[in-house]
């Protein structure tokens, strides 16, 4: 061990907390350079946090970290060192883009590190060949198996020849053969590049045996460091798992007893609890489970061993009736499984890998709910819950919420819930994943007791070899098929392998040689370059290549996401239709009726004057007040005119008469419009009438007001609304899409790629913005087309001015969306936050309804700085007022100012690290 060399990572007094939770406490650690160093410990002890700090993904809170000889707290140093570090986060394919193909994924990383086309081609070629991914270059990353995803992740990490490779649980959930291949690949790479340091976190203790140097961690602290042999020697253990348990603090080991397996006293006469006959499940053309057969006897513990996605969960779902098999059948206690037979469900308990508990209900409420749903008699529920709580050691936490509990407690609660109705069989889908070894062993003791004492049949799936060894019998599963079923010892013996894992791999290789090839052992991996020629080609300054690599990737992703694409393309069209027709205030063909007490030619002339206009349409006349009341109440008529008796006679004699009009006031805006129309028609009738009766000269008004409605002579809603709705929609939807594009990456985790690569904030932002600007311009053209063709609202002014205004405006609105994305975390928040923050100012304060000048206070201030205000002026000017560019210059200036302001602000607020 070259401990003489300077350590690759040096940590002093490092601490990290998330809110109240302390993830790391006061860590002092020197990790030697040029070795393969491993962090070991179960989930949640701080391994991932530590790696995130070392890679620079997460911002340092307390203490000091030096990586490759520099201070990671310095942004300058991080920018300088990022091309020398590669980081592969936890989770299968976490930093990959699932809709992008293998090739596109690697290519994106190559562009980020500034390689030119020829260089990328060469490097990607070598890497894909080395990892055996070449035949799958066009397959979307999301459709790869777990092992292949990890290899692809490795390709993406290695494309720039890093000096420090950080891998966070790279093999969790991967089948043993792929796991072995993965480590072989790493060995090859290290042989090529002996100077490279590798830092790995893992939960598999067996795997850690092959590392050069280990850090054992628990509860945010370092328990011990040293070579595997040293750890074994110092604890006097034979396996690393035992060594780890021995290293745990006293209180955690309290009550720890090794698992003792009582052999299952099964004979041929014992009843068969479950039987699978040729179970097959196909999803489309993908066969998830292919002809699985087994028989499990009562009281047996039967294990299903396999990697993620090999069909374990699907098989279990078929056994529980959740999925009807495509072919074959499952027998439960000798009877064919019927998904609709609720009675058999009472005999089975089920526990899934995610411990599906109601996190909103307390432990007690969870137990009670399940007891009730299983129809336990009300009197038995209380004692049963009590008994389960005692048996699974939940008494102290009965009133706690599951989310507040450690994983081990949640796991016991899950088991208690699954056992609440006293089932004869338990189906457990990876019940121990992520749980620490001590809790895991306690869980197994409970299982063994259930099986041996209570005769419960247990069907369990796992990807831990040592757990599989505890089962009475196991099935090895791979790619939807069962490779072999037998007692664990028998399987090992049959292959003549030293361990169960070796036996499993032997079966996998056998299967692989028959089946179409998942690539065999790779050729030696020369990750890329010759000596350091390109190693640090990536530089700090602004790079168009990196910017466009974001643009390219964003466009590809958008094209493959149907719902977002629909929103982008159809959203504005749909909303334009809705708003165009929905905001119209025109009153046309309003139903009215006349209560004519007079019935003379004059009164009929009056009512004709109403029906003659396009605003009103006459219904059957009214006979009396009761009818008036009834028909208006029913909403059948909105206006009633009452002409008094003797109307014609009085009028002719010049006696004052009164006509009454009742308007339905339920909808006040409409009522006001109606009132205006009725008044107008009344006046018009009156003057015509007087002219006819009394001659032209008789009535001379004192003065007249001649109203000219400019730009929209008929005062119709559509010509007024359409030019105002376009700015609204070009704000709302582009802003939402732009905000989602960043927040989505935050939620999916791929934003890590921005943190760890040498991209600058501006490259990231502008790169992501471009596709949305293009998309928004396309929808602008569509909206204008709709306005002209569908709504018949022509562009009377300069289209060029309108288009230029739209371009500036959508750059501004997408930038506004990006700005919002800097302070929201979830997509849902981004969606609704952006909607509220754009709709309110755009509708209320931007001159859409009332001119900004008519507003007061904050509304006016917002109206004056919000870009929509100015685009509304441009849009109305070019649509309705026949204006040219020169008339509108003053409205372009604020748009021009808004762009650098918004983008600058966003770049300032966007973080280059997690906090």
């Amino acid at each position, binding site marked *: 061990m070259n401990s003489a060399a300077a350590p690759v990572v040096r940590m002093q007094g490092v601490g990290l907390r998330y809110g109240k939770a302390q993830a790391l406490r006061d860590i002092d650690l020197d990790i030697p350079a040029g070795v393969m160093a491993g962090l070991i410990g179960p989930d949640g002890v701080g391994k991932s946090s530590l790696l995130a700090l070392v890679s620079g993904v997460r911002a340092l809170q307390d203490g000091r970290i030096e990586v490759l000889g520099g201070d990671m707290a310095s942004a300058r140093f991080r920018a300088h060192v990022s091309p020398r570090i590669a980081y592969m986060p936890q989770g299968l394919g976490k930093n990959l883009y699932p809709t992008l193909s293998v090739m596109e994924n690697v290519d994106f990383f190559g562009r980020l590190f500034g390689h030119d086309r020829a260089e990328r081609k060469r490097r990607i070629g070598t890497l894909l060949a080395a990892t055996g991914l070449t035949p799958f270059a066009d397959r979307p990353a999301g459709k790869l198996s777990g092992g292949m995803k990890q290899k692809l992740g490795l390709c993406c990490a290695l494309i720039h020849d890093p000096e420090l490779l950080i891998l966070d649980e790279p093999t969790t959930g991967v089948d043993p053969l792929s796991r072995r291949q993965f480590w072989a690949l790493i060995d090859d790479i290290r042989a090529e590049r002996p100077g490279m340091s590798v830092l790995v976190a893992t939960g598999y203790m067996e795997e850690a045996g092959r590392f050069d140097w280990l850090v054992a961690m628990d509860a945010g602290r370092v328990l011990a460091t040293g070579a595997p042999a040293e750890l074994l020697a110092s604890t006097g253990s034979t396996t690393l798992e035992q060594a780890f348990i021995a290293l745990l603090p006293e209180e955690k080991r309290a009550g720890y007893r090794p698992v003792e397996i009582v052999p299952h006293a099964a004979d041929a006469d014992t009843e068969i609890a479950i039987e699978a006959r040729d179970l097959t499940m196909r*999803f489309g053309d993908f066969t*998830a489970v292919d002809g699985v057969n087994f028989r499990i006897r009562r009281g047996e513990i039967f294990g299903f061993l396999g990697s993620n996605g090999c069909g374990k969960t*699907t098989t279990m779902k078929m056994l529980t009736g*959740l999925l009807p098999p495509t072919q074959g059948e499952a027998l439960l206690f000798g009877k064919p499984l019927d998904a*609709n037979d609720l009675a058999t469900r009472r005999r089975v308990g089920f526990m899934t890998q*995610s411990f*599906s508990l109601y*996190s*909103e209900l307390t432990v007690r409420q969870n137990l009670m709910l*399940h007891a009730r*749903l299983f129809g336990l008699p009300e009197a038995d529920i209380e004692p049963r819950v009590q008994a389960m709580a005692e048996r699974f050691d939940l008494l102290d936490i009965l009133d706690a919420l599951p989310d507040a509990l450690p994983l081990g407690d949640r796991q016991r609660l899950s088991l208690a819930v699954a056992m609440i109705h006293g089932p004869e069989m338990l189906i457990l889908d990876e019940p121990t994943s992520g749980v620490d070894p001590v809790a895991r062993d306690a869980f197994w003791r409970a299982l063994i007791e259930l099986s041996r004492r209570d005769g419960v049949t247990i069907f369990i799936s796992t990807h831990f070899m040592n757990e599989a060894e505890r089962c009475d019998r196991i099935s090895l599963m791979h790619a939807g098929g069962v490779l072999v079923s037998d007692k664990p010892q028998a399987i090992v013996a049959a292959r003549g392998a030293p361990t169960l894992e070796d036996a499993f791999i032997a079966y996998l290789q056998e299967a692989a040689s028959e089946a179409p090839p998942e690539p065999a052992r790779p050729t030696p991996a020369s990750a890329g370059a010759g000596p350091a020629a390109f190693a640090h080609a990536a530089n700090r300054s602004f790079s168009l290549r990196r910017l466009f690599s974001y643009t390219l990737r964003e466009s590809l992703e958008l094209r493959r996401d149907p*719902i977002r694409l*629909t*929103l982008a393309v159809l959203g504005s069209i749909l*909303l334009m239709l*809705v708003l165009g027709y*929905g*905001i119209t*205030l025109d*009153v046309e063909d309003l139903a009215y009726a006349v209560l004519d007490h007079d019935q003379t030619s004059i009164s009929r002339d009056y009512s004709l004057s109403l029906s003659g206009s396009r605003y009103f349409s006459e219904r059957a006349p009214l006979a009396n007040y009761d009818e008036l009341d009834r028909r208006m*109440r*029913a*909403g059948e008529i909105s206006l009633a005119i009452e002409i008094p008796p003797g109307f014609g006679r009085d*009028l002719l004699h*010049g*006696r*004052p008469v009164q*006509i009454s009009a009742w308007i339905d006031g*339920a*909808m006040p*805006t*409409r*009522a*006001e419009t109606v009132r*205006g129309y*009725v*008044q107008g028609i009344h006046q018009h009738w*009156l003057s015509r009438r007087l002219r006819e009766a009394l001659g032209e000269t008789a009535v001379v008004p*004192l*003065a*007249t*007001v001649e109203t*000219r409605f400019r*730009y*929209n002579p008929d005062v119709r*809603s559509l010509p007024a*609304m359409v030019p105002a709705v376009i700015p609204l929609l070009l704000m709302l939807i582009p802003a939402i899409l732009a905000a*989602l594009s960043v927040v*989505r990456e935050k939620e999916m985790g791929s934003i890590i790629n921005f943190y760890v690569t040498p991209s600058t904030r501006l490259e990231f932002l502008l790169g992501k913005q471009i596709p949305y600007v293009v998309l928004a311009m396309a929808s602008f053209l569509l909206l204008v087309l709709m306005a002209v063709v569908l709504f018949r609202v022509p562009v009377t002014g300069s289209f060029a001015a309108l288009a230029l205004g739209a371009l500036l405006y959508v750059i501004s609105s997408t930038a506004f969306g990006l700005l919002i994305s800097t302070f929201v975390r*979830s*997509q849902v928040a981004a*969606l609704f936050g952006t909607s509220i923050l754009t709709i309110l100012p755009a509708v209320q304060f931007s001159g859409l*309804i*009332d*001119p900004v*000048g*008519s507003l007061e206070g904050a509304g006016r201030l917002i109206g004056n700085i919000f870009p929509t205000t100015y685009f509304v*002026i441009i849009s109305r*000017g070019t649509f309705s*007022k026949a204006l040219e560019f020169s008339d509108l210059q003053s409205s372009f200036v604020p748009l021009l100012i808004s762009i650098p302001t918004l983008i600058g602000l966003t770049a300032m607020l966007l973080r280059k690290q997690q906090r």
Partner: protein
Amino acid sequence: MKQQHVRNIAQLGIKELYSLLRDPIMLVLIVYAFSFSIYTAATAMPETLHKAPIAVIDEDRSPLSERIVDALYPPYFMPPTRITLSELDARMDAGLDTFALYIPASFQRDVLAGRAPTIQLSVDATRMSQAFTGSGHIQTIVLDQVNEFVRRERTVSIPPVELVLRARFNPELNKSWFGGVMQIINNITMLSIVLTGAALIREREHGTLEHLLVMPVSPFEIMASKVLAMAAVVLVASAFALNVVVRGLMGVPIEGSLPLFFFGAALHLFATTSLGIVLATLARSMPQFGMLLLMVLLPLQMLSGGSTPRESMPEIVQFVMLAAPNTHFVLLSQGILYRGAGLEVVWPQLISLAVIGSILFMFSLARFRKTLASTE
């Protein structure tokens, strides 16, 4: 067996209520939607004429023209800007004024001489709301001022036929009455879809849905429990809003029978909660649900007749919207709450809601079963 059915639905329903109780965001949303949102929507309905910008070209400069200009004052109008005729077009083009009043030279003299001169009013008709009511308003003001001015000089005969206009159900055409109640209706729709959809998606994302399905519980019970629980929450909240906020705080009189209204609301909720389930089965995740919501909710609210009258929409839109529960619910609510309509008037809406609700419920149950079967 039947009894177990009902018991399961009740148990699951109670669980939904507990879940809601522990979800602060949804609680805030409910409280906001049924108090502040209604209050602000009702009181913030803009008076159509408020501080309208107006310019005056006064070439007369007489006592009468001064009188007219002085009569245009806040809050209806901004203090008038005096401009010249040559400035007019540019100012209107730039959108500085909504109205421009042109009083020609020797206006007063012509009025007194009985030559009936004409005042020109230019209106920027792209600003619909101000343009329409404002022009009528200005016309009345001008003529009133002229009449009053002349009346001092000589007597004027009153027009022989008077038109008496009365607004039924809302005599002062108070907009907050309309705004408040319509906002309740919109929020009933919005919340029922959001709550039910989110409850289903949350359950699916947490994996607890599968867990329920391996228990002796049928998909029908799961769905019915969500529909019932969320509808009950929305119903209670809207009852509170209608009685306390709208009737109490804002003093809006309610004409008709509240039990009948809430019966209608329950039928409407039956339809919209089912719609929430349908959307939740279409969306794969909460964000997708949000996007779908945006595209579904807005048309439902805008085109149902709740914000603008149905009869002014194109016939095809009116016809298509008959399939939406909102349309019928808006008709029913306006009838009952404003016009005091009874069962004999609103029964067609009740039947429509029941039919639409049943169809949506059956459809969502079918979709729900289908997505359960295809979960991977």
